[in-house]
């Protein structure tokens, strides 16, 4: 179990073959028509079907925001937590129940702003889970404020009418520096590639992060143009941090591709010795 580079994701034992619809609930999403998150939902269910995971053995944890509404639209075990705290919830869940496949979903505001601290430490701790960030460079649910990935010159928010004036966060660079084990960027407009990447991310041990560029048609309608300049990365993924860092730092934030980095760090897990009875514990008190 220690030092394994490849983990086996065990598909359904009962012989049932699942299809994407099995992972959808009957709840009708309230995302605005045109929202990139619809494609993410479709890709996620396709990925789960491809892995043929029993829905009851998958957990999807989210925070607060439009993207974080996703668990209710699925048929897996969902947890809609408070703003920015999806990662610690997911970490606690996975460490207590290593048998579950744990997925985390949130937006750029939830994940990188209030969730920033937890993001650093989730990458560092490297527990086996997959974090899908739906990045639309805005806080959609509270009527459109700048988020950590918004350009400094965007003047569309009443809170920062002259633009935030500060550089945006580079989430994948930070993920790499903090220790994430699998780093990828996808686009909601390329759902097959996204589904394939999710499959790989789940299979890869340790903390996997997928930044999905997912346009907000209501507050950032100009993002509809993303499909015109998002392009695939030509080369293969990097397995050493230096090349990955170099490539990420030279990246303009709009390249999607196979995967940007695959590390070989061991996934963190709790491995208790479990070699004493409670009665034996009291021996230290005896006079």
């Amino acid at each position, binding site marked *: 179990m220690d030092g394994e580079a490849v983990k086996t994701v065990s598909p359904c034992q009962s012989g049932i073959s699942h299809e994407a619809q099995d992972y959808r609930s009957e709840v*009708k999403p309230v995302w605005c*028509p045109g929202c990139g998150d619809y494609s993410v939902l*479709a890709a996620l269910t396709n990925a789960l079907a491809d892995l043929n995971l029993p829905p009851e053995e998958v957990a999807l944890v989210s925070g607060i925001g439009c993207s974080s509404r996703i668990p209710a639209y699925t048929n897996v075990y969902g947890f809609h937590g408070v703003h920015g705290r999806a990662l610690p919830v997911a970490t606690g869940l996975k460490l207590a129940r290593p048998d579950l496949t744990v997925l985390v979903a949130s937006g750029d505001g939830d994940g990188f702003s209030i969730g920033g601290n937890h993001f650093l430490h989730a990458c560092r701790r490297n527990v086996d889970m997959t974090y899908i960030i739906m990045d639309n460079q805005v806080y959609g649910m509270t009527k459109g404020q700048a988020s950590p990935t918004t350009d400094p010159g965007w003047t569309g928010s009443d809170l920062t009418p002259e633009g935030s004036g500060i550089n945006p966060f580079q989430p994948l660079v930070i993920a790499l520096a903090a220790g994430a084990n699998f780093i990828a960027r996808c686009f909601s407009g390329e759902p097959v590639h996204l589904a394939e990447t999710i499959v790989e991310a789940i299979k890869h041990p340790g903390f996997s992060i997928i930044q999905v560029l997912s346009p907000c*048609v209501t507050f950032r309608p100009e993002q509809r143009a993303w499909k015109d300049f998002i392009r695939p990365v030509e080369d293969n993924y990097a397995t050493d941090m230096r090349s990955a860092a170099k490539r990420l730092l030279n990246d303009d934030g709009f390249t999607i591709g196979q995967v940007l980095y695959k590390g070989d760090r061991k996934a963190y897990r709790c491995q208790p010795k479990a070699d004493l009875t409670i009665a034996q514990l009291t021996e230290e008190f005896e006079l």
Partner: protein
Amino acid sequence: MNPTPQGKIDNLEDLLRYARKFERDAALRYSELADQMEVFNNPELANLFRKMAVIEQMHVDDVSALCGELGVEEEDIAKTRWVGLEASEAPDYSEIHYQALPAHMIRLAMGFEQKNAEFYANLAKGTSNDKVREAAKRLQAEEEMHLRELETWLKRYPESDPDWDYDMDPPMELE
């Protein structure tokens, strides 16, 4: 069982699996879009999408009939619930708008049909199996027929309204 990675299909069963999946997926998609339009209070489009979902369900029946014709066991095809990610292309959801005109949505649907037709055309080109090629060409022809049906529908609706996406109310905050 699963098709080879480059999407080459060399046996009838796999081809028909794909076909059946496409039509079922289309029916599901339109159903979802109808739901979206209901949630967003656009009953005209909701009804349009429901109609399309029903038509796609009829296309699923057409594939069953084709199975019979080609001597393929329909039960076997129906039993395979997953045919791999290549066949999981979702439509481009970004072009949908809660105040869209029916004309916009019919064009969108035409786009989906066009994509499917192209998929079968490529399959026909890429396969080495004659029967598969023939069947693929038939399926392609059917998709093209769907396309023409949609074109006639399109004529019934006004193409544009300069104000179609004007919503006087500001966005609401939710959480």
